[in-house]
């Protein structure tokens, strides 16, 4: 990998304005193809997983729209969060999510991912999923019907086709904020074995909040961050508590 972000390998994820006309046409074709061949990671994180076998098998048959379960995160496109997440599972979910290759999409299935649902006062589960990883679509209900799951998959396919499902870029642009939220649960020394900042540089998705006070303990592993000319937040801003804002999708 080149150490100069401007010399980094040109990948399709740079901003649309920077792309040439040919690049944009190629992106459009790639999006169109990608929307019709989605692999769903086979990870049953909660009780919503009981409605996935009917959705995937003969009766509702999602394979006809090009979807299939995939066993490894590295080859999967969609991470389905099927219901409530205990803190112990959330750690595995974050590690799984970071292993997936972009572009990647997250669907929160069931009320528990939206506001805690039935377990709103449980001491063991998290209540708001999009504080920890960016989420593309939610399905309300406990539990959602297979028709609802299908509807959301079709909606996601349409948004991928139109190039609108961009929530995953938010994880790189605001990595410091997401890491801070994760550190509140897992401790301040928490880090996954994935070099998210390195990926952000490679995808050219380094934003103002990629590095900050929460990522400071990662920088001892990567002294080259200083040579890259990454936009760093002002010291005053680093101390300020990150604002809770609506994730731009």
């Amino acid at each position, binding site marked *: 990998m080149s150490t100069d972000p401007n010399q980094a390998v040109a990948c399709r994820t740079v901003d649309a304005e920077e792309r040439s006309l040919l690049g944009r046409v190629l992106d459009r074709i790639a999006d169109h193809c990608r929307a019709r061949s989605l692999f769903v*990671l*086979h*990870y*049953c*994180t*909660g*009780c919503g*997983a*009981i*409605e996935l*076998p*009917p959705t995937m*098998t*003969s*009766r509702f048959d999602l394979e006809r729209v090009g979807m299939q*379960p995939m*066993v490894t*995160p590295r080859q999967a496109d969609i991470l389905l969060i099927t219901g*409530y997440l*205990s803190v*112990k*599972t959330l750690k*595995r979910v974050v590690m*799984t999510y970071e292993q997936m290759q972009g572009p990647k999409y997250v669907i929160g299935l069931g009320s528990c991912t939206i506001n805690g649902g*039935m*377990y709103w*006062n*449980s*001491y*063991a*589960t998290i209540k708001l999923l999009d504080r920890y990883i960016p989420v593309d679509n939610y399905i309300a209900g*406990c*539990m959602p*019907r297979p028709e609802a799951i299908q509807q959301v998959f079709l909606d996601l396919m349409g948004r991928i086709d139109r190039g609108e499902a961009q929530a995953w870029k938010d994880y790189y642009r605001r990595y410091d904020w997401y890491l801070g939220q994760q550190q509140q649960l897992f401790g301040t020394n928490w*880090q*996954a*074995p*994935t*070099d998210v900042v*390195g990926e952000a540089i490679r995808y050219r998705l380094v934003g103002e909040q990629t590095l900050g006070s929460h990522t400071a303990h*990662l920088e001892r*592993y*990567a002294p080259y961050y200083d040579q890259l000319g990454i936009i760093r937040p002002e010291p005053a801003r680093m101390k300020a508590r990150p604002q809770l804002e609506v994730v731009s999708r």
Partner: protein
Amino acid sequence: MRPENYKPVQHSASHEYELYFGPNHPGIEGNYALKCVLSGDVVQSLRADGGYLHRGFEKIMEERLWIQNVALVPRICVPDPVPMEETYARAVEMLGGLEIPKRAQWIRALMLEASRVCAHLFYFGGHAATMGMYSNMFWGVTDRDLILDIFEEITGARIYHMYITPGGVRRDLPEGVLDRLSKVLDYVESRLPEFDNLFFDNAVVINRATGVGTLTTEQALSWGVTGPNLRACGLPFDVRRDDPYLIYDELDFDIPTETAGDAWARTLVRREELLQSIRILRQIIATLPKVGGPIRCALPNPLAWNVPAGSVYARTESSKGELGFFVVSKGGAKPWRVHVRGPSSMHAVHVLERLGPGSRLEDVAQIMFSLDACPPEVDR
């Protein structure tokens, strides 16, 4: 962290290695993990690692009203939720001294047995899938959906019905649903020869499952094994017959047993139980139209219901084994303590850890599925 900075833990030279099996693994049932120590592909030791689905049910239930908990209990076990509702409702009725109307008892038995058929169809698919045989899973899941349609017609929901409440059931059966259920049962029964051809008479499957995860009767008794897993060891214990609840003493059914105690025997027992459940359902379909009367007894205002003080243990035969609720009331608006005795917490933790060593790695998933362990119920 960058990979070149990642310093792995150094172990001394050994023929053994550690493998994490799950939670993100297609061979594991639900969100559950096993830590295996292997030599070659033979399991040396196995530790269950649960807690991924822990929601703190027993604590949450202490903070909600008696009637609010009706919505909470089916979520304990996802593939087979009806016995949870039934057991909790019966525990509250025992505490409150409520007499359930006869018609409600028959409707409850109908729901319980239909749920057992669902769970066993799911089990056939799951067990076959651990051997890489997915046709069976497609068939089982699709046939199960027909019963879910009946559930939806009766209760309004496919999975979590919240239909059985303390004192009876929520509403009466819709018109004609018994005929439709009867047709579904005919269909499921007519499918069994096809399941036989594909799975139960398949030499590959029989060779693969025979002698895997063998339990002796003494082991099963001392490790707290219940349900079909115990009956596969030759012990005909069934809560429905030995401690009858609802109207089970008026029904005519057999307790199928096998003697081998291995994964194959457990599957054969469940195949026989599916037929027995269909037989029970046919009796209920024949009797239910003659049983009239109300579907719910008179209840106090559920939002200000102080259940009399006391402690009870109610138990039910679920598709996985004996399910019990130990409920303590101090006369307040909320339960003082609820303990769930789930069959899977014995099967998936204690039994699995002891059956694992000595088996091959590819059989670990099969042993877990053949015990029909349900991780949400282990972790609660």
